[in-house]
């Protein structure tokens, strides 16, 4: 029995489409951290009225110092890799990988465009179209904490251990308000599937942020705590803990932690845009209108071009939230640890429970 008999044409097409989708998602995710390095240095310069890195360019073209990202990457890769003598070598090598793999995996559940028709097959523009939808993202991203915890422990350094213990307690605590904030959305859209949620937000008044404003408030706060970003960056509070859990890491290992942090931010930004801001849909313009306009230009590739427009829309929306992350970091001072825990358990958790009960009451009132 040859290979042709075992695998049908449909399966070959599906496998090839899957590989292309994985490639696109990984490429986009891998482009984000270097770009964000540049943004993270230029944005505070803008906020604090200084110049920031604006020199590195190609030959005489400065292009706003964009090449600084590549210079930073080259510097990181060529640094000497140092493993502390007292470190637990096994986990010291594994920890950065455990950090970055869940980050990349979570990106696979984000729907980045409308379904497209290609050679007679319908291709959903998400790598895996799981029934559990965003629960999958929450589940996999909750594994990322092991990278941080093991990194701190394996370094055998008190600052690292303190940083990693802080970070894991913080991430486990804020997963609860994050999860609770999403339950009203499930109740409103009555599905877990992310693409179905996007499709039902075709009207701007039907956006998640207007239907469940408290949910968005909870999600936005938990988002910062989950990614260990300022004002909740206690895991790497540089004034107290040197650099927290990645104090002992250098070179490519540090770069991996860096990638994990920015990819996590990007995925949460995409998730926020998907759940609360209509995902790949352009505000005020329905998907059918976009396809209609594009059909006037090209008859055959209208649905493909519409998918591309959808992708760009999602990236613009996600870019806004990435900017929001940086904006908040350079605006708000860091919380104290007990304030952070108090906020999580004494304010956000009851508010999340109240939000669920409130939404349920409204839905019940409108139904009966």
């Amino acid at each position, binding site marked *: 029995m040859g290979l042709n008999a075992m695998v049908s044409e449909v399966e070959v097409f599906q496998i090839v489409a899957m590989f292309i989708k994985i490639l696109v998602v990984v490429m986009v995710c891998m482009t984000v951290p270097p770009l964000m390095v540049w943004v993270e240095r230029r944005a505070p310069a803008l906020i604090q009225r200084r110049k920031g890195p604006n020199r590195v360019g190609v030959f005489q073209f400065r292009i706003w110092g964009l090449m600084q990202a590549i210079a930073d990457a080259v510097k990181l890769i060529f640094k000497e890799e140092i493993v502390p003598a007292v470190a637990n070598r096994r986990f010291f090598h594994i920890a950065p990988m455990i950090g970055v793999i869940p980050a990349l995996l979570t990106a696979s559940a984000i729907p980045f465009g409308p379904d497209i028709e290609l050679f007679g097959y319908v291709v959903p523009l998400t790598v895996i179209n799981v*029934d559990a939808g965003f*629960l999958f993202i929450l589940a996999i991203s*909750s*594994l990322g904490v092991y990278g941080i*915890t093991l990194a701190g422990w394996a370094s055998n350094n008190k600052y690292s251990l303190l940083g990693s*213990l802080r970070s*894991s307690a913080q991430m486990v605590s804020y997963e609860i308000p994050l999860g609770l904030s999403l339950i009203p959305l499930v109740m409103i859209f009555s*599905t877990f599937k992310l693409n179905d949620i996007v499709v039902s937000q075709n009207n701007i008044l039907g956006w998640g942020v207007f239907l469940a404003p408290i949910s968005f408030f909870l999600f936005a706060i938990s988002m910062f705590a989950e990614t260990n970003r300022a004002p909740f960056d206690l895991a790497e509070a540089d004034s107290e803990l040197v650099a927290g859990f990645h104090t002992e890491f250098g070179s490519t290992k540090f770069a991996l932690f860096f990638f994990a942090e920015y990819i996590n931010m990007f995925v949460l930004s995409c998730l926020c845009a998907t759940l609360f801001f209509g995902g790949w849909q352009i505000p005020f313009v329905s998907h059918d209108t976009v396809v209609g306009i594009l059909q006037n230009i090209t008859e055959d590739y209208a649905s493909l071009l519409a998918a591309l427009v959808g992708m760009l829309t999602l990236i613009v929306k996600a870019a806004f939230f990435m900017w929001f992350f940086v904006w908040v970091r350079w605006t708000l001072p860091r919380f104290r640890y007990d304030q952070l825990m108090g906020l999580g358990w004494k304010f956000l958790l009851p508010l999340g429970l109240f939000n669920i009960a409130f939404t349920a009451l409204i839905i019940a009132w409108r139904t009966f």
Partner: protein
Amino acid sequence: MGATLLFGIFAFLIVACSLMVVLAKDSVVSAVFLVADLFVMACIYALLGADFVAAIQVLVYAGAILILFLFVIMLLNLDIVAARTNAGPLEIGMFIVVLIGFGILVVNLLLGERIELLPPGDSGLSITGKGNSYDLGLVLFSKYLWPFEMASVLILLAMVAGVLIAKRGKKKQP
């Protein structure tokens, strides 16, 4: 064909990880393999089409409970290697019980009826066609409403008891 192969890989990984949990000398290594074990178990649920259960398995067990295990091990700096002694009568007795149970399982697998694995597919076990999570919610809030509510009350009781014990300990110290 593909599903059976994947099931074989996952089953092998579960057994290997479980063995490592028990045999590893370092308690942190044990805990990490327990995480891997629970994660692969979620993979088997996903293979059966039970997406919701798989996600909850990873979210609750691997993501939340095991991190607390790791937390305690790191904070107390547990050193099991030093505490390990030669097997006493208790350990030997436990080993015999486990061996008998395993023997019964093997005999049952060889002689008993074949258990049909549920057919994997895109919609999984969906009866209504609206997805596995929808079905699960429907069943939980109709047929199994009382057991479900009882379980939630039980968990609440445990939580209240935990808070109470923690508070009582504090009051004694002025």
